Structures are given as C-alpha cells and as structure tokens.
C-alpha cells in the first residue's frame, strides 16, 4: 500500500480526497502536525477556501518548512486547487497575500471577458512530459471550480486548460513537487489515473 500523508488545514471535508486516494490504490493518513508532514513518504495538500485563509492555516501549521523537509528527502508532494495555489509566491484574493513560495509565480483572478468562476469539465493538453500524465501525453478529462489561476513560468507548466483563450495552468511540477488546479477527486476516471501515477512515484527517503 502506498501511504500518503494528507495535510488537514481544517478547511472542510477531506472525505472525498481520502476516498479517491483509496480508489487509486493508496492509503491516506491525515496530518495536522508539521513533524508528520516533514517525515512523510509522500504528501497531498488539498484545500477549498480563499487564499488568505489557506495561508493563515498553513503558516500556523508551519507547512512551508515541513514541505521543504519532505522535498529535501525526495518525497513527492501534490497540491490540489487551493493546495496548489499556496505553493506560489503570492495571491491577490482578499488583498495581496504571501504564499509558501515553493514555486515562482503569482495567483491572480481570471481576467474579465470569460466565464468566471471557471466551473466545469475540460480536456487537459499536456505541454511537457509529466510524471503524472499518461505516456504519449494522452489528454485527460478534469473538473475545475476556480476563480483564480496560477501564473506559473512556462518551464513549470506541464498541462494547461484553455478557457476560451485564457490559459489556466492545470498541472505544474518541478522535481517531486506538483500542483493541479482541478479536482482529481472529482474528475472520475481521469482524476483517479492521475492520483494513481502520483501514488506510484518513489517515496521519500526515511527521515
């Protein structure tokens, strides 16, 4: 069983994420303390909330140092939706807020002129080979529900969703750190496949 530590920021229901991990062949373990995250085999940071609230909880937990420790051991880390957004340097929801700054880039509101919130399903287009994608960059159906997007550098962006001409970074990654803007736990077969690939990445070295 591939154990995965799920960061609990106290921001609501983690039942769907936990159950999706089980369906994808993993064993979820909830963590509310930095030490558990720092020594985890692999980590998922879920979250549905505003950027500011998410960062308040992340700071109180000491999430930045915990994730850095996990990454230093080579542990795979996956941020989902808000859990992806807070990996970046800053966000502009409810004023400018500092992020965890584990990835370069900002989180900005989706510009006017397209449907906001960006709610619904679309097929991802892979822009580079990703450890989370199927061979041959096979497109993946993903469910989104977001009003903000990560403006990530091109070299970190592994898949995008084209929202009527506005590119939404759908999968970002660098070494063993990943973020997905959509909800794999709500994305049926495609989401399960992505989670299964994440769970099969080699675990971090023992602490």
């Amino acid at each position, binding site marked *: 069983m591939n154990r995965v530590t799920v960061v609990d920021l106290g921001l609501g229901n983690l039942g769907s994420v936990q159950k999706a991990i089980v369906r994808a062949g993993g064993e979820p373990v909830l963590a509310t303390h930095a030490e558990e995250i720092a020594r985890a085999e692999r980590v998922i940071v879920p979250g549905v909330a505003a950027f500011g609230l998410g960062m308040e909880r992340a700071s109180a937990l000491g999430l930045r140092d915990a994730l850095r420790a996990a990454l230093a051991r080579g542990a795979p880390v996956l941020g989902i939706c808000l859990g992806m957004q807070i990996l970046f340097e800053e966000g502009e929801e409810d004023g400018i807020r500092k992020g965890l700054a584990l990835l370069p880039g900002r989180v900005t509101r989706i510009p006017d002129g397209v449907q906001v919130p960006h709610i619904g399903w679309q097929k991802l287009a892979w822009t580079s080979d990703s450890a989370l994608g199927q061979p041959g960059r096979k497109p993946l159906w993903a469910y989104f529900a977001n*009003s903000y997007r990560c403006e990530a550098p091109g070299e970190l962006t592994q898949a995008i969703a084209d929202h009527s001409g506005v590119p939404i970074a759908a999968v970002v990654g660098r070494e063993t750190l990943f973020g997905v803007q959509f909800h794999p736990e709500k994305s049926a077969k495609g989401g399960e496949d992505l989670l299964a690939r994440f769970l099969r990445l080699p675990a971090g070295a023992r602490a």
Partner: protein
Amino acid sequence: MLTRRIIPCLDVKDGRVVKGVRFVELRDAGDPVEQARAYGRAGADEVCFLDISASLEKRGTLVALVERVARELAIPFAVGGGVRTVADAEALLRAGADKVSLNTAALADPALLTGVARLTGSQSALVAIDAKRRPDGSYEVYSHGGTRPTGRDAVAWAREAVDRGAGEILLTSIDRDGTGAGFELELTSAIARAVPVPVIASGGAGTPGHFADAFGAGASAALAATVFHFGSLSVASVKEACAGRGFPMRWPLEDVA
C-alpha cells in the same frame, strides 16, 4: 474549452430518493448514493440533490447523506432545498458538498449569498432562481418552491445575486417545468447575457435536442429530473445529440466514466 454539462437532479426526502431512475443494476433504488453513482457511470457531469423533506428534524439526515455521497461519488454534486442560514450551508459544505443552492432564503436576505461565498469561494454558492413569464414578456421571480410571486425581475435578481457572491445560477422556468416542451430559451438567454457566471437551464427537458437548444441559448449546463428518472432519455443519448449539434461535451462515454 469548457464542455457543456448534463446534470440529473434527484429529489430526496428523509434521506431517500423519491423519484428514482430504474437502473436495473441497483440493489437499492431508493439509496441516493447508489443513484448518483449510477448517473456517474452513465456519463453525468454532475449530480444535484434537492431535499424536499417536510420537517426540520428529518433534514438532519441530509448532512449524513452528503457525507456519504462525498466519499462515494467521483464527480461533483450540488445540494439544495431548505438551506436557510450560512450555518446550514456550512454544515453541507463541511460534509463534502461541492455546491450549496440557495433560493427562498437568499431572496429574503441576499447577504446570505455573500456569507456562503466567503466560506469556500463563489464557485460553491449556487443561487436557484424560479421564474415565470409575465404578459409583457419579462420574467418574475417566485419563492417558496415556485408558489409565491416576489415582484422581482429575474434579470435584475440574477445580477444582484452575482454581485452578492453567487458563482452559478440554477435557472428554472416554472412555466416549462414538468411539461417536456423544452427549456425556456428566451429566459435562459436573457440571464446568460446578463451575468458572467455559468447558467444551468432547468425545467422543460423532453428530448435530447432540447438540451442542445439550451446550450444554443447560452446555458453552460442543463438539468433535468423527469426524463432521466423515468428512463425516457439516457445521459448518453443527450450527450451524443449535443455533440452532434457541435457543442463541446465530455464524451464519448468510454473516455470518461
């Protein structure tokens, strides 16, 4: 490009499905979780639960149900019916609902929408608008399950609701609901043009072509209960027809479910 969504709606009373589709493989056709999962396998993009329980005590069963659905369903779902306060909405969102739908209570206190949007973001705050055509061709909003005229104009209310924080509109035509005569396209189009958020057309679905017509009028999604429950239409047949009319759909089935 976002695909257009097909959303079956399940009426739930005291924790059980009232009108359920006769999926042959179900062991318990009254179980909302089994019904929702069957819709997911059939290619539904999302499921909507409408709680029609009469008493407040029985409503307690809804939170437990939402928790179970959140664990077992691999597609998003909305919950509505009798949500009166921010605390009601918070309980449902904490239990794992992706969206909470507000109707009568939001008309009485529009700030409720702001409160719900603050909890988890406007994508979770769905405003349900029940509208009926006036003789002059405009549309009036009704509350209390479509029984009480409010004097409010539907387009004006849609705009206000979005300003207050609603991230999506579930728009039901009272005139068309249950008729099978097709969605009210003028209403759909008027609201879709007025707001930047997605509009879910509801009321009147009878044929696969009706769904495509709603998308043509600007709806991002279309919701139906009767045609799916009584098996006169399958989600697959609807998606195939809409894809055939050139609308982007999450399709074909073998790719998605």
